[in-house]
């Protein structure tokens, strides 16, 4: 499937989704509550088979915290980008996809460590790089006068 067909297909799964054709990949914005269901469907549907989560990045959008999932199918070689964001900066929570793609285990731990987003149902959500005395350094409002040299 090419980008347009893929967009239409995803639209057919869930018509409420906001689908944008990016410069490279098709981008799907999705509310956190629907993320897990869609991810599972994309993984399992015969037509899509997104079995390879090649990148999972947490992003601080200023107001919101979000996660971007880059999915690829090893069979059809097509790519989709899922984006989700939550407005709750104090207790951000998203569903974990670690049981769909095992690689998400480490990636989600990294996001939790650096951005403080909690993933529900994650098998082993501990901090990865830093110890608990640190804040969440990839957030834009993170202040550390000692360790970070800003411009």
């Amino acid at each position, binding site marked *: 499937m090419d980008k347009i067909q893929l967009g239409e297909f995803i639209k057919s799964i869930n018509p409420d989704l906001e689908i944008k054709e*990016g*410069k*490279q*990949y098709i*981008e799907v914005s999705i509310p956190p509550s629907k993320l897990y269901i869609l991810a599972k469907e994309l993984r399992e549907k015969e037509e899509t088979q997104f*079995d*390879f*989560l*090649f*990148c999972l*990045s947490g*992003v*601080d959008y200023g107001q919101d915290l979000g996660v*971007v999932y*880059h999915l690829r199918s*090893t069979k059809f*070689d097509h790519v989709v*980008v899922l984006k989700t964001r939550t407005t709750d900066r104090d207790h951000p929570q998203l569903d974990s996809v670690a049981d769909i*793609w*095992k*690689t998400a*285990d*480490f*990636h989600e731990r*990294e996001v939790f460590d*650096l951005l403080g987003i909690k993933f529900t149902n994650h098998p082993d959500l501990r901090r*990865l*790089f*830093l110890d608990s005395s640190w804040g969440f*350094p*990839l957030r834009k409002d993170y202040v550390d006068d000692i360790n*970070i040299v*800003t*411009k």
Partner: protein
Amino acid sequence: MEEKVKNITTDEQQEYVINMGPQHPSTHGVLRLVVSLKGEIVKSVQPHIGYIHRGIEKMCESITYPQIIHLTDRMDYLSAHINNEAVCLTVEKALEVEIPDRIKVIRTIMSELTRIQSHQLWWASFGMDLGGLTCFFYGLRDREKILDIFEETCGSRMIVSYNCPGGLMYDIHPNFQKRVKEFIKYFRKILPEYDQLLSGNVIFHERSKGIGKLTLEDAVSYGITGPSGRASGFSCDVRKHEPYSAYDKIKFKEILFTEGDTYHRYIARIDEMWESMNIIEQLIDNIPEGPYAVKMKPVIKLPEGEYYQRVETARGELGVFIISDGNKSPYRVKFRSPNFVNLSVLNHIAKGFKIADLVAIGGSLDLVIPDIDR
């Protein structure tokens, strides 16, 4: 006698936990593996990382794009050139700059040389992990030859920073082609020696065949890329699937196996060295004339948007994900580093094997710790 009774304990307490690392000869850097053993059998491996976490992603948010290049060298220092290329390609893609063929060809040659030297160092240390200390010196001896070529052209041996957005830092040295050809000729003779020393050895076969099996399904699910993934049959070579630089113009094989054990991860890398030499031989005589860099604006600002570029480093797929808000420094940079992902599978495939196998499996995944920590 009471102490005796106390000593007979539950199953959980019977686990014998040892810390491999952060300073341990087989972890090749500051990786700490908390290994639960039962006898010599590994029950679980919990990687503890972050000992050299430098926050490269955070640092990138406050520096300009050409400066980022120099940080990427420090991630996977053995694939320094390919890491640089990834960032350059992202920037060039975002700015929609047309890159002349000369730059593409030189970048490809340099990438493949980087891949060979990385595999040589891996072979050296892998041999050492298995107890064959001579391998280490053989591997390093040959790696020096490539580093010499790098030094002549890039001015630096390991942390090359040879790429810059829009092309290369400098033109190639006049001797470059000659020396690369000499190296290929030399290494074609030397590489069978590697087989004689290690791959042909019975003990090595016993130590590596059937050890740490990774199925195709798990490889895809865990996202294991590079030679480790291809040994399991996961066709994940970015050079084939999303060709960049000059890879669309040349012929080469994607090394694929189906067994996915330590032995085939090893063979995949050895074969990749042969394949890299083929690639270099196709290109080295046909470097087109032209400028070595495109004129770029003095201050590079990426248009607003999200850009993703994948490249194939020596260890797997490196993804560079840049979110730009139109400033001279990126809003968010994410490096999808292959080692970070490859490490996550260690517990899964090392379970149930012996502690000596854990070392072999860890060696066959070819982890570079600064790339894990970033």
